[in-house]
């Protein structure tokens, strides 16, 4: 597994702990939309991510012997997190989660229940119901949700292992639209908060981590960049920088100036 943090940045002795597992990297990456499997693996490795998401789909019976994703993504190297992408109902999401678990790698699921095809925003009512069902079946549930505190608290009460509020709509690249809400969520929740969706570039990731959230999940930001592997490296550094800046405790903002050089000892 990728284990080493970038040299020169403050080492974080406190790893990201979710559902009893510890991860050194706070960056979680999706495996969709890359040019091919070689680029996927290269980008994943460059990102330093230890957990990556995968989707569950029908095998294409017409494709002549397409190679399985598992031939390229070694479950020994990456912890695979199946998602329920494309599900619009509680029933569908639960069905896909069960299929993902049957692959035998873990009982974790990134739970998505989408409410609107255009914005891909979550149907929080169905999401809550699906979370309760899957938690009862022993799943470790990481729900993709919005930045509403009440929904987040309900998801936590329902047994979610983490809560994953969106920064902005999936694949939009708009970055962090409501930092205030994310900060409120982080201050009130006990389970880890992982910002998922909408990240566009490195500064988005850095700014998000500076809020003190526990982790960040992205896919399109890497896959749709001109140079995904380079963006993956940038994101790795951005996440580490943001986390370190948070731990460092930033200076307060003021609306007036305070000199950085001494005011005494000036010449006559």
């Amino acid at each position, binding site marked *: 597994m990728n284990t080493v943090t970038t040299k020169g940045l403050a080492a974080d002795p406190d790893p990201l702990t979710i559902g009893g597992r510890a991860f050194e990297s706070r960056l979680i990456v*999706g*495996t969709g939309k890359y040019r091919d499997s070689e680029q996927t693996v290269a980008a994943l490795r460059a990102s330093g991510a230890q957990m990556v998401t995968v989707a*569950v789909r*029908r*095998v294409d019976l017409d494709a002549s012997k397409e190679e399985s994703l598992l031939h390229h993504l*070694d479950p*020994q190297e990456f912890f695979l997190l199946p998602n329920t*992408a494309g599900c619009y109902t509680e029933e569908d999401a639960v069905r896909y989660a069960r299929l993902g678990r*049957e*692959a035998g790698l873990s009982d974790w699921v990134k739970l998505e229940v989408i409410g609107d095809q255009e914005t891909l925003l979550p149907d929080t009512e169905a999401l809550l119901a699906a979370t309760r069902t899957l938690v009862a079946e022993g799943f470790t549930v990481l729900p993709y949700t919005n930045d509403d505190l009440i929904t987040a608290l309900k998801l936590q009460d329902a047994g979610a292992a983490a809560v994953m509020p969106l920064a902005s709509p999936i694949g939009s690249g708009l970055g962090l639209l409501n930092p205030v809400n994310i900060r409120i969520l982080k201050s009130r929740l006990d389970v880890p908060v992982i910002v998922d969706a909408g990240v566009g570039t490195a500064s988005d990731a850095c700014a998000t981590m500076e809020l003190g959230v526990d982790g960040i999940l992205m896919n399109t930001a890497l896959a749709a960049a001109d140079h995904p592997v380079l963006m993956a490296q940038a994101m790795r550094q951005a996440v580490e920088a943001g986390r370190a800046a948070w731990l460092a405790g930033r200076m307060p903002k003021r609306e007036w100036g305070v000199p950085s050089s001494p005011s005494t000892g000036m010449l006559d």
Partner: protein
Amino acid sequence: MKVPLLHVVATDAVVEAPAFETTAADLIAAGRDRIALHLRLRRIAGRDYHELAKRLGKAAADAGAWCVINGRVDVALTSGAQAVQLGSGALPVEAVRRLAGMRLPIGASVHSAGEARQRVAEGADFLVVGSVFSTATHPDRVPGGLALVTACAVAGVPVVGIGGIDPGNGRQVIDAGAAGIAVIRAVWQATNPVDALLRLIDVVAAPAHEQEDERRMLRVEVNGKDREVGDGRTVAGLLEDLELDGRLVVVELNRQIIRRTEIEHVALRDGDRVEIVHFVGGG
């Protein structure tokens, strides 16, 4: 996972005999996708083993056959052989899986149903079960008989019977639940090994195609498309027909997930709806 029907094991003495490689190549060419040639060698030097395995592995690949390296995982991985077989004293299955990933089917030798379950839990893709009958190769071993084969066959992966098997008793081993049989003497000590091989294949092979056409055909839906399968075809059989590796897909039958250990036992019925899914890239 589909394993070849006829496993022929070449020991040091066999490999050291003159004209071994020509015979081996002839066996592979004659047996094609029905033969697995095992190399179980201890006396040979590493480089020679690698080179031999490379040549036979290539011949096997060209013929749709398997060349299986027993014990020497390093030789299996570097030579392009088709599978690796781990004896009782060999490396643990999980250690080999960490090295080989999904690239190489891993077989394990077992002598009891308990061992069979254990190896399958550790991740073995197929088992070689022995001794079925008494054999001069292991004169002190008490044979487990056909009951041993049947007991191991429910562990969830294909089993290959070994130990005293010949044309006279080979079919019984298959009927007891084995997916294949392994022989040493029956082929190498025959006057004409290729003839002996073909005779063994005839004895143990599945019913001829003409018989299958007379069987009732069922209509099922697979991944949204209609498909015909023979009456009694199991989910495992369907995966075989579709050339899918059972370890890499998940199957749902009429909205119920079929566990991997069950796919050999669940038979399809007319009107069944099958969904076969796998992991793909996604965010």
